[in-house]
């Protein structure tokens, strides 16, 4: 009896199921993205005919100090949103998993995990509102706490001082982000075979030794995913900048995503805004590709 395998039998007729999704994707993502690239080669105020100017927007970007500064600020946000949360997340997850979970019960561990994760469920704009009020210069809660404990000199205009604003935003982002790696890493640690830890313990490895040589290498896939997704999130960051500082003071917290928004809707330099958005996209796609390549190479070794 020759039964045609299910998967090869009239594969074509499954294509019908792709049509709604494909049409929507075309209308909402692919065509608009193509248009954005097209617009980036024009000078356009959003009304009237766009004027084709070739690569002028991109050459202008090369010499635009505001643009480069916005990328430097973004590096700070990558540190605050991807690098530090990953490092802190590893230590916190291991502490919760190895100490709290094993000796005081997994219930305690998951309650603590929930507390640390909570900022993640807030709309990021709402988190920004909470913090802009805490960091307010006059009657903000942080300055009030500092004054209450006699550290008046440490009270600052956290978001209004150009030297401090980016650091303040970074602190807020760290608070928002740290719960995400903790949850992912704790899930990953459940996957690690306990006998690996027992073997290391028999060999006389300390807790740090086991953490470094067993836990971290075992949850490498999770670390990769967290670093990749958090770095992309940091490059796209918009809402907290909009709510906390509007890119100020004096452009000290401007980021590419906010800069393109300004060009689109405030300065009505749509072509220039589109060029910024295109560069940002290319950067994100290149980063994603590199990350995935490196991860694949690690897996095949």
């Amino acid at each position: 009896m020759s039964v045609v395998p299910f998967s090869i039998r009239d594969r074509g007729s499954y294509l019908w199921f792709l049509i709604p999704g494909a049409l929507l994707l075309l209308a909402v993502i692919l065509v608009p993205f193509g248009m954005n690239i097209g617009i980036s080669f024009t000078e356009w105020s959003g009304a009237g005919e766009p004027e084709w100017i070739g690569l002028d927007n991109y050459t202008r970007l090369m010499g635009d100090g505001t643009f480069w500064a916005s990328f430097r600020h973004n590096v700070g946000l990558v540190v605050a949103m991807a690098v530090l949360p990953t490092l802190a997340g590893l230590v916190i997850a291991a502490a919760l998993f190895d100490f709290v979970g094993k000796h005081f019960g997994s219930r305690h561990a998951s309650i603590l995990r929930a507390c640390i994760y909570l900022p993640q469920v807030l709309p990021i704009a709402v988190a920004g509102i909470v913090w802009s009020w805490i960091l307010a210069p006059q009657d903000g809660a942080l300055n009030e706490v500092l004054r209450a404990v006699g550290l008046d000199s440490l009270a600052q205009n956290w978001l209004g001082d150009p030297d401090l604003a980016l650091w303040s935003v970074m602190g807020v982002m760290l608070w928002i982000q740290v719960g995400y790696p903790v949850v992912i890493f704790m899930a990953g640690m459940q996957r690690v075979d306990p006998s690996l830890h027992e073997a290391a313990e028999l060999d006389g490895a300390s807790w740090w030794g086991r953490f470094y040589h067993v836990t971290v290498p075992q949850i490498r896939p999770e670390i990769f995913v967290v670093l990749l997704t958090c770095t992309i999130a940091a490059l796209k960051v918009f809402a907290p900048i909009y709510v906390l500082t509007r890119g100020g003071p004096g452009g000290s917290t401007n980021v590419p995503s906010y800069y393109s928004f300004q060009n689109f809707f405030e300065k009505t330099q749509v072509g220039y805004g589109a060029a910024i958005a295109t560069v940002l996209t290319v950067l994100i796609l290149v980063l994603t590709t590199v990350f995935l390549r490196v991860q694949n190479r690690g897996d095949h070794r």
Partner: protein
Amino acid sequence: MKRHAVLWSMIVLAVVMLVPFFLVALNAVKTPEEYSTGGPLDLPGGISLDGIVAFWERVDFGEKLLNSVVISGSVAVLAVVVSVFNAYALGIGRVKGRLWILVVFLIANTLPQEALVYPLYFLANQVGLYDTKLAVIIIFTVIQAAFGTYLLTSTLGGFPRELLEAARIDGANKWQTLVRIVVPISKPTLGVLFVFFFIWTWNEFFLPLVLLISNENQTVPVALGVLQGQRMMDATMTSASALLGVIPAIVFFLIFQRALTRGITAGAVK
């Protein structure tokens, strides 16, 4: 000793993470007078709902909540449906070139919204959908479904072939197989996707900010964010607004926790 030191440092960390929530709740129930005399750290004399009521009325918060529920709920339902269709073709139907199709969906999910926003704004204007909930619903259906397709395709790729084969022998066509076999069995995963899509859409800010310009269409985060930008509120009203933004998120968090565990355990028992 060491165990307790670790436990205590984790408790301290958890408390530090919760302090902002606590401060918001504390000040949202103060009167403006209490706030101006005692500052943000004093305990309130009683529970005053004036700030919350004033803010609620000022922005018509009930309307904003309804907008958010309508938009997020529609997106979650539609995006799950679209994801299922796509993943059925890719994961079970294994149509030709599925790897490349998946790459396109993945890229669609990775693209920054900045690179779509102006064309979407322009196109929405052209077709008369600018400043309508429908425009936002359609856009986020596609964005969420791009991720859903990616995730569901790998789940459905491992769908038991015997069940599909049995359905075919019983005379079910593809549509019947999808509705009667694939969807019921994948329900736990679909439930988790629904919750994710709902919360993610609820939290979105950038595209709704650009596309929902009029008051009666705005979502909760946009209404709060725009008002915050104007900086016209007193401190108690600001913390009241923050509290009203925080509460739905915490409610979802509780539901989300349950849905997630249910999804994971259901997957494990299977």
